[in-house]
């Protein structure tokens, strides 16, 4: 039993069996993380480079912690302060790093498809830690793992993804994963932030009314409003977005059931989520962060296996 792919570039390339294997393995790693000694020697002879061409807190720390918990040797690379500013190409940077005998590459890049490009040119196993507006596979896996912990199954689960669907790699990876595992998905947000033909492209339903979406779902995955895109005039103002789509206590109290709230982080408090929701017992945001380490350990472990390094 092994993954059907050498790299983890996106959920799109995985089979349902791959996803199940990753989530089952993550469960065993979560147990490791509860032990007095939270470290196993599985990747003792593996060297991994974290290539981050874009800012990241959670994902980067999570990957680094996962690698260290597996006893791997870790090199961290940030584009800022590197020779990238001198005009070095992505391929040259990576080839130079690989000539130092690196086995795996974890990569975040602002250009969609950057890890796919690399996978065609280098022998190392590649894990995509987020590429532009394309995919963020480990985030979707940890979201799925967190939902499994709460609900026990993904089959038939109703998930609403709320917010900026248009620019969200998290949304895309989640939609792929939930579709493959038999969950039902509704995407909800302003019309300007939802791709026009999304219903034709994926098995999802579009709902513009957030209250209806919340009433329908078991879990709501609330996306970050990307304030850096505010100059694109996709909605009038942050305040208006918050009034129309922000999830607050009042909205949740109007529902006739309790729903689970998720968020990939970082949260814009008071915009897409109010503090009294983000910090309430509806929210599993911190469990998601904790599960992220176990899920990434599973991905690293399974990709480091036979013939991969």
């Amino acid at each position, binding site marked *: 039993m092994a993954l059907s792919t050498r790299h983890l570039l996106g959920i799109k390339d995985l089979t349902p069996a791959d996803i199940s294997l990753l989530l089952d393995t993550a469960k065993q790693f979560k147990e490791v993380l509860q032990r007095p000694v939270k470290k196993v020697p599985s990747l003792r002879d593996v060297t991994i480079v974290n290539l981050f061409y874009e800012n990241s807190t959670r994902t980067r720390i999570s990957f680094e912690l996962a690698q260290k918990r597996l006893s791997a040797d870790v090199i961290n690379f940030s584009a800022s302060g590197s020779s990238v500013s001198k005009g070095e190409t992505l391929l040259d940077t990576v080839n130079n790093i690989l000539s130092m005998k690196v086995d795996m590459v974890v990569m975040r890049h602002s250009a969609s498809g950057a890890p796919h490009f690399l996978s065609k040119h280098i022998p190392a196993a590649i894990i995509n830690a987020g590429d532009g507006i394309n995919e963020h596979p480990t985030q979707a896996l940890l979201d799925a793992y967190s939902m499994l912990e709460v609900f026990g199954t993904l089959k038939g689960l109703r998930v609403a993804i709320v917010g900026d669907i248009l620019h969200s790699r998290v949304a895309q990876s989640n939609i792929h994963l939930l579709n493959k595992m038999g969950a039902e998905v509704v995407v909800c947000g302003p019309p300007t932030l939802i791709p026009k033909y999304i219903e034709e492209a994926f098995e999802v339903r579009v709902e513009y009314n957030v209250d209806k979406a919340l009433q329908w779902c078991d879990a709501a995955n609330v996306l970050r409003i990307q304030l850096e895109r505010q100059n694109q005039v996709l909605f009038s103002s942050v305040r208006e977005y918050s009034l129309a789509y922000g999830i607050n206590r009042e909205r949740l109290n109007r529902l006739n059931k309790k729903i689970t709230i998720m968020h990939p982080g970082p949260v814009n408090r008071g915009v897409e989520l109010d503090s009294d929701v983000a910090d309430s017992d509806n929210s599993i945001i911190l469990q998601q962060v904790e599960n992220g380490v176990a899920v990434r350990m599973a991905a690293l*472990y*399974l990709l480091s296996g036979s013939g991969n390094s």
Partner: protein
Amino acid sequence: MKTVITAEQINLTIKRLAHQILENHLQLQNTVIIGLQPRGVYLSDRIVEEIKRETSNLQVNYGKLDITFYRDDVRKELHVPNKTAIDFSIEERAVVLIDDVLYTGRTIRAALDALMDFGRPSKVELMVLIDRRYSRQLPIQPDYTGKSIDSIVTQKVKVLWQEKDGKDEVVLI
């Protein structure tokens, strides 16, 4: 395929092994029994069942340990982990490790490493149903043995369990 031990013999052997543990560990509260995943747990389940029967349901500290992440051949072949469940402290306690077949000793080496991540036991003993003699690659020997057999490298010893394979039997393939 040749039968090495029959169902009846397995039953008798399990009774004997359970009695040997009781004989050496009078204070069972300071002893923990740990079965090795995946196939050692079928034997450890039976041993613990027998101990409980013998001691009229005395509380036994019983856990299951998966050694996948501690293997020394992790890069040669991918192994999928099983569940580890040790929900008690092993610190300063005697541990009886239980596996079905002792062959090269590498699994037990990995198990000792894994065990140390849960604490520092006062003593570790090894119980196996089958000891394949003269095939060890590490200096590891059992303290309790069901049966020792001599076999050649090309042969495979398989322990079949009622719960998993529909019958109790040890066969040489």
